[in-house]
């Protein structure tokens, strides 16, 4: 395969990151001193539990009986016919409890929180899916839950805000900076520094300081492991390509990681092209950014010539983030994953396309992956197969879409 460089053949992807949380030059732990202790604690707790059969059994039980896993791998037959080309399969994370892949990691992290004995959890959220997932597991475990959310996101995701409140969480509006996901993460970090003794931070994506990118990836990799088995069982083959949207990148890394060693499987991470990459108003650091340091790790970022993080734009709140998980930066440099973009308009038209041909309303984030897969499938043969991570359902976006359509509900 042309993108599979010599490096990739010798790398053991399961051994990454290294002990300091580095994926090549990316990742690491760029935090103020106060947090080092909490991160060390978390690292050793996770190291102790990750291969512990009892811990794993609890997670497996919760994923099966509470989340509803395994999620189906669904052949989108009618849509495939319409597109004309490779067979398109959907990994149905939208069918999970709470409606997105975020719960996979929230369940795991909440269980870690339980082991620490801390009684309060915090999280940042963009689209609100991670906030809802965290509020959900907090309700179930009886933990106090505070969710940080940018003011702009609170407006465009009001349904999820109300869901979090129903679940007993306190939603804290963040009014600093661009008032979106990036600033919610800043505020969560500040809260954590201030309450580190009794608070566990449940991070929403494969970003942040070590060990978070590794922990989130490992919890989310259930998607890729299932998809791999399901693909073999249903078709007898591995897929030819995987497609997933990338904001922070947790749904993408979770699908991709178990396939990284499979040289025949091509991978496409789809970033938010916003108004178009050439306009500068987008959220595509892997396509139009440079490496820098933000939120505890080194990764590709959207920044100006003075190293200030710049405001991003995407129609989907969950992709509206100037950074990306450090492992993605590394996979980009290795050439193992192709990172591409889809703009707002393309995502919207894919949203309608899938809704109307398959009766599945995807999240606007997911619609980016769908739009790219549509193009990709058309360029492939009917004997080939693509898996899209259908990372979340679009119920939360109905108000946004109605507004775009000029309809007031």
């Amino acid at each position: 395969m042309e993108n599979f460089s010599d490096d990739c053949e010798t790398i053991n992807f399961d051994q990454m990151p290294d002990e300091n949380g580095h994926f090549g030059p990316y990742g690491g732990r760029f935090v103020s001193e106060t947090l080092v202790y909490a991160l060390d604690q978390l690292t050793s707790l996770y190291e102790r539990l990750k291969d512990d059969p009892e811990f794993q059994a609890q997670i497996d039980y919760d994923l099966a009986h509470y989340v509803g896993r395994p999620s189906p791998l669904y052949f989108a037959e009618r849509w495939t016919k319409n597109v004309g080309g490779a067979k398109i399969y959907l990994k149905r994370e939208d069918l999970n409890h709470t409606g997105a892949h975020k719960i996979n990691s929230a369940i795991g992290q909440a269980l870690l929180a339980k082991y620490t004995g801390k009684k309060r959890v915090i999280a940042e959220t963009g689209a609100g899916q991670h906030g809802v997932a965290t509020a959900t597991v907090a309700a179930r475990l009886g933990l106090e839950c505070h969710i940080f959310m940018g003011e702009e996101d609170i407006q465009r995701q009001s349904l999820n805000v109300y869901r979090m409140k129903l679940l007993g969480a306190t939603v804290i509006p963040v009014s600093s900076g661009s008032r979106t996901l990036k600033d919610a993460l800043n505020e969560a970090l500040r809260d954590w520094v201030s309450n580190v003794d009794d608070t566990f931070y449940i991070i929403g994506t494969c970003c942040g300081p070590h060990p978070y990118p590794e922990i989130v990836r490992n919890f989310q990799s259930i998607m890729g492991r299932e998809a791999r088995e399901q693909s073999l069982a249903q078709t007898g083959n591995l897929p030819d390509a995987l497609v997933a949207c990338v904001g922070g990148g947790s749904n993408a890394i979770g699908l991709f990681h178990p396939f990284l060693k499979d040289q025949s499987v091509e991978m496409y991470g789809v970033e938010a092209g916003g108004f178009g990459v050439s306009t500068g108003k987008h959220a595509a650091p892997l396509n139009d950014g440079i490496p820098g340091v933000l939120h505890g790790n080194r990764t590709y970022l959207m920044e100006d010539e003075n190293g200030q993080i710049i405001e991003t734009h995407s129609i989907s709140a969950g992709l509206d983030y100037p950074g990306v998980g450090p492992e993605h930066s590394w996979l980009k440099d290795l050439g193992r994953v192709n990172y591409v973009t889809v703009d707002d308009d393309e995502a919207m038209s894919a949203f309608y396309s899938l809704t109307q041909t398959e009766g599945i309303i995807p999240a606007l984030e997911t619609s980016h992956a769908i739009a790219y897969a549509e193009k990709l499938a058309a360029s492939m043969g009917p004997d080939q197969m693509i898996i899209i991570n259908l990372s979340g359902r679009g119920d939360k976006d109905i108000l946004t879409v109605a507004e775009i359509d000029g309809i007031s509900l």
Partner: protein
Amino acid sequence: MNRIAKCFERLSKENKKALISYIVLGDPMKHITLPLMHALVKSGSNIIELGIPFSDPTAEGPVIQRAHERALENGSNLGEALSLVKKFRESDTITPIILMGYTNPIERMGYDKFIELATTSEVDGVLTVDLPPEEAVTFNDKLKSSNIENIFLLAPTSSQLRQEKVTKMAGGFVYYVSLNGVTGAGNLEIDSVQKHVGNIQSLTKLPVCVGFGIKDGVTARAVADISNGVVVGSAIVKKIAELAETKEIDPAVYVDAVSRIISDIRSALDK
């Protein structure tokens, strides 16, 4: 000898404690910073920490966050900080200047270029909040061949092992963060500060100064009694914010107001 070491030597001879004052470059307007720096010295500060504005200052409480935002609105940046220090040196060659900020602006400029410019401007120290020792190896090695000290933080949560590691790498002085929190937060627990500072002092010959949560003469004095000096930030920046609210543009007004705060703390320290 680095200016920071000379400064502490001088203070020690005079039996005085260090007063380190923090302001943000370009807060609230570019023309305010230089007169303010001289005023900080005149009213009793021994060292100036010049905050480099950053879009995502995760260690700061609301008061200093807003200061970063005000400074970014007028386009203040790291390059300007370096030029400003050069200008400051035209009339003050004694007061140590420390640039305090976040990793990304320095990385964007490049470590080599930063060190070159900072050396030309006679910057004496750099404190990068989000660059702990594990990630600071390259930067620290490069700084070693300069006359710029790398200043590190220690916190109440820092283990004994960690205190040993940090003090080994630290230069200038050790900055002890008095509480688990962001700048401008909470109340000081003097007993806890005393215990930790004492332990750090047993590990290093470097002076140990305490910051976060020092609001006035009383808290400054209490902390100075058990350390080598205090860092005052939010209390100054809060006053600047009040004046910025009134759209004040006259540097003399800022100088007066901030000088009063510093003089009060200085006299409390010297009592």
